[in-house]
């Protein structure tokens, strides 16, 4: 029997705003399958986002949803999680929202290792505003504000998350749809800050400017550059040139923030300082 997405989608809220060929819908379906596989209660799940195309995702999901201001999802979500640690807190958003304007909140949520799951849809561009370069736009690629090629170096979101202290970091692609739900589900189950970067595409504002002839070509690129971590172990540095690792990239066991604060409460109540 086909998977029933309807039970998690808010009635009357589709069609979504995303362009034909955009991968965000693939991520939405992956998220729903992940939630379903864990039997997450909708009223016990908060989905928090910032601003941008990807940040419109919460509006479609029948949970406690919070569409915040640009870049602030991780900070709002930290308040939600601290206040109600029993809730599942899932963040969604794009590369610009999460690592430019929201970069500070992102790294500090990782540092605290607070039990939230951040799904970042990385399509290398500010899509909603018409295709300006983001912190993940590769060097020399074209955007509406890099007409002569992007002079900036780019962020590796997964490395950023690991460096900042996230204890579960994974990467998937919009091409490999069946892997997305598994990575998200593993992230949600992990006790601590989990970051799942999904390499995505924006045919409308990125593909068009960068000579991708079709969505299929963009999807094929994702397929070609992705190398599962296991497979990469057997490959030479030369073979890995230009490739991007996918799968669970990092996992560590470190005290979770809400649990640590519970200890603060116990110490304070016990009269210790």
């Amino acid at each position: 029997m086909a998977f029933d997405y309807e039970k998690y989608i808010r009635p009357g809220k589709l069609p979504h705003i995303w362009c034909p060929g955009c991968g965000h819908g693939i991520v939405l379906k992956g998220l729903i399958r992940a939630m379903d596989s864990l039997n997450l209660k909708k009223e016990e799940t908060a989905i928090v986002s910032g601003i941008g195309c990807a940040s419109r995702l919460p509006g479609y999901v029948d949970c406690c949803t919070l569409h915040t201001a640009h870049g602030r999802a991780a900070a709002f979500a930290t308040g939600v999680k601290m206040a109600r640690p029993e809730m599942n807190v899932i963040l969604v958003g794009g590369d610009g929202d999460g690592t430019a304007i929201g970069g500070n909140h992102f790294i500090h949520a990782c540092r605290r290792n607070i039990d939230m799951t951040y799904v970042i849809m990385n399509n290398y561009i500010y899509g909603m505003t018409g295709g300006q370069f983001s912190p993940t736009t590769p060097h020399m690629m074209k955007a509406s504000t890099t007409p002569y090629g992007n002079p900036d170096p780019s962020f590796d979101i997964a490395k950023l998350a690991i460096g900042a202290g996230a204890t579960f970091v994974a990467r998937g692609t919009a091409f490999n749809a069946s892997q997305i739900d598994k990575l998200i589900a593993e992230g949600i189950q992990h006790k601590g800050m989990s970051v799942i970067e999904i390499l995505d595409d924006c045919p409308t504002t990125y593909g068009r400017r960068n000579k991708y002839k079709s969505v299929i070509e963009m999807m094929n690129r994702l397929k070609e550059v992705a190398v599962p971590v296991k497979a990469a172990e057997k490959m030479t540095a030369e073979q890995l040139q230009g490739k991007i690792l996918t799968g669970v990239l990092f996992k560590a066991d470190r005290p979770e923030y809400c649990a640590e604060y519970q200890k603060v409460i116990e110490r304070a109540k016990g009269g210790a300082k």
Partner: protein
Amino acid sequence: MSKKVAFLQGNEAAAQGALYAGCNFFAGYPITPSTEVAEVMSIELPKVGGKFIQMEDEIGAYAAVLGAALTGKKALDATSGPGLSLKQELIGYACIAEIPCVLINVMRGGPSTGMPTGPSQSDVMAAKWGTHGDHASITLVPASVQECYDMTVQAFNLAEKFRMPVLVMPDEIIAHMRERIEFREPGEIEIINRTEPTVPPAEYKPYDTRFGDVPPLAAFGSGYKFHVTGLNKMQDGFPTTKAEIVQAEEERQVRKVMDKVDEIVDFEEFKMDDAEICVVAYGSTSRSARYAVNAAREKGIKVGMFRLKTFWPFPDKQIKAIAAKVKGFVVPEMNLGMCSVEVERCNEGKAQILTVNRVDGEPLNPEQILVKIKEVK
């Protein structure tokens, strides 16, 4: 039983007032001269099972407060000028999404870094006009340590009642001076909590105006599912660009406050019965003004003081009534003229208006105010 009495600083008293009001969540970022609020909350909140978090920046602190408030917490943030500037976008978010919360903003010199340890009253306009878009503001201005306590309680009550952000803005002098204060007994001040929905979750709409201009607010995690956004929204919380809905919702969010101005606005009239001159003052400046009024009265000058306790909504009705009676206003402020602009608006050209302004980090002294009182013709 005698009341608990303490010798506290304004910031400490504000924190104690927040706890009395039932505050159970604090997020903040260190900034002079408001940091003591955070320090007290970091000690006291965990003792009662509340949560304290020091965030990575000012914007993050206010964001965490809004997130916590949506789960049903009574949430507080404390800051000063630069922090107030940084939080402005999210103050607008709290207005449009209608999230109850309290921000204590201790006024120091500005613009920018200004004079971090010096007092000022130059944030009163930023409190109302700082965030973009139309919205109502409730801003309280304490003039004593006791008022820091009481007004923080009142701020939570107003935030919960009107489902919106409320600001408490002591100037640095009030926030850092020490005075004797009385802790309130349980029940001595009524504690107001937000109206929660009575409809079953399936029927709940977060902006359901069938219940009036301040719709009930459910908490995330309490069994209710709903959507919150900073976009213009419909009664069900989802975004809309439909002209008539946007217009109606915007107007409601201002009306919910402005229709209740008489209930919200608080003030003190001092020796105003026969006054021919009115000093309009607030915060620490009102303490110098009181001294000046007494000194002028000794010289036979019929002068009184109207002290603002609520800066926003501005007490238009009261100032208009005074304007019709007196020959002049004297408006002393630690800024270059902010309250005086509002007094001018309400005065409608009737009485003479003299201002006394100081932005050098020093308090206005009674003599400066007395000189102006004598200048009123």
